[in-house]
């Protein structure tokens, strides 16, 4: 009984959905603030993403002529549900209680659902800009998904397990995987930037070329939920990379009172996800947008080959049983 109650508290409150919302809005604020300060501007106050969410929820929902209202209402909710579910399997204060073998694969597939929703939304809005944006989103998914999956696969190969929490445990006993697989780390960061559709990969929502891509016909509640989906994807993505490469919320040694362990792990989680956010924001500030055919070229020539090289190295290391 208490087990079930504790699980409910874990899922709904902390470190579940309530903490997820708060942290997603906080990371969104930090992202905008860091970007603004790097550009010599002031940036928004800390309550800005929350205020944006409340404002968008209250705005009128405009249906373009001939668009299927039910589908348009449902797709953002499906995307939001997918990323919220993916969050539950990522370790926040220690092992996730819902962990099972293969939850890495489940998380990766759930994180791809928002891109498909953007494509569907783009295709179903009867708008040429949204159609182009949707097509670009799916094309970009094709290009970065292979190296991104490969780069997140190599920690699993080295740790010999398919569960994120057990990879974190493996790193607790050995060494952070970023030192053993630096190429994979860089490919994973680039892949995450492409998944979150941030500069230099914000091709599907290029403001100066196709107005807002798939987001053009979203208004009101739909826009609020899709925006929240993007912000939560940022949290899940950075938490995933922090768990797989940077050791996750685990100290190399165990502290004596159990609750202190949890608190220390939580602080480490915050610290590592903030570090990943700093790197992602710096990439966003330092570059401009590239074209989809240029992304095709560099994606397959450099990023995919780097990921395959990394997989090759890990297989060789495993074969030689260098790491026990």
């Amino acid at each position, binding site marked *: 009984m208490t087990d079930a109650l504790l699980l409910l508290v874990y899922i709904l409150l902390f470190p579940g959905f309530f903490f997820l919302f708060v942290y997603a809005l906080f990371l969104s604020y930090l992202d905008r603030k*860091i970007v*603004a*300060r*790097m*550009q*010599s*501007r*002031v*940036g928004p106050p800390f309550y800005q993403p929350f205020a944006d969410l409340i404002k968008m929820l209250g705005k009128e929902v405009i249906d373009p002529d001939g668009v299927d209202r039910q589908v348009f209402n449902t797709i953002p909710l499906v995307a939001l549900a997918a990323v919220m579910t993916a969050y539950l399997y990522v370790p926040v204060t220690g092992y996730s209680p819902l962990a099972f073998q293969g939850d890495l694969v489940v998380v990766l597939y759930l994180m791809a659902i928002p891109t498909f929703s953007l494509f569907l939304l783009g295709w179903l809005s009867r708008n040429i800009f949204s159609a182009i944006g949707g097509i670009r989103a799916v094309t970009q998914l094709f290009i970065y998904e292979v190296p991104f999956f490969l780069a997140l696969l190599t920690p699993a190969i080295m740790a010999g397990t398919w569960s994120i929490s057990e990879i974190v445990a493996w790193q607790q006993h050995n060494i952070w995987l970023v030192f053993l697989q630096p190429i994979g780390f860089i490919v994973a960061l680039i892949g995450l930037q492409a998944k979150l559709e941030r500069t230099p990969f914000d091709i599907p929502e290029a403001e100066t070329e196709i107005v807002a891509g798939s987001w053009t016909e979203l208004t009101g509640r739909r826009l609020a939920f899709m925006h929240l989906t993007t912000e939560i994807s940022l949290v899940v993505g950075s938490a995933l990379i922090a768990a797989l490469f940077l050791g996750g919320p685990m100290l190399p040694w165990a502290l004596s009172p159990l609750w202190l362990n949890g608190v220390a792990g939580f602080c480490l989680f915050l610290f590592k996800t903030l570090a990943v956010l700093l790197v992602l924001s*710096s990439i966003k*500030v*330092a570059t401009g947008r590239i074209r989809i055919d240029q992304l095709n070229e560099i994606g397959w020539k450099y990023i995919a080959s780097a990921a395959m090289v990394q997989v090759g190295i890990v297989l060789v290391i495993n074969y030689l049983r260098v790491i026990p």
Partner: protein
Amino acid sequence: MSVLAEMFFNLLSKPFTILYPKEKVPIPGAFRGRITISDEKCIGCSKCSLVCPAQVITMVQNEREIEFKDKTIKRKKKPQVKLFKCIRCGLCERHCPTGAIYLKNELSDSGTDREVVVT
């Protein structure tokens, strides 16, 4: 490389933004601001009204004795300007013989009545 160096330098320094209204930009002395008429100097020659490109200056009846170049002139009219329609070009100031109409270096502020006048 220079982009990265500058980004991180900016992250740690003060932003360039001026936080209006707490901080204000100093207005230079030659700024063309609010149009102002000085009642003691105007001799009612109507040059400002003729020269104004936006045609917002009308002359209204107003009698007064003015000292101008050691003579006493009895003026018959003086200008009335629509404050928010003035484009602040300064032609009236340039062509006024006495310096009675000029642009102060204050801001004209804002209002909701387009026809409000300044005399």
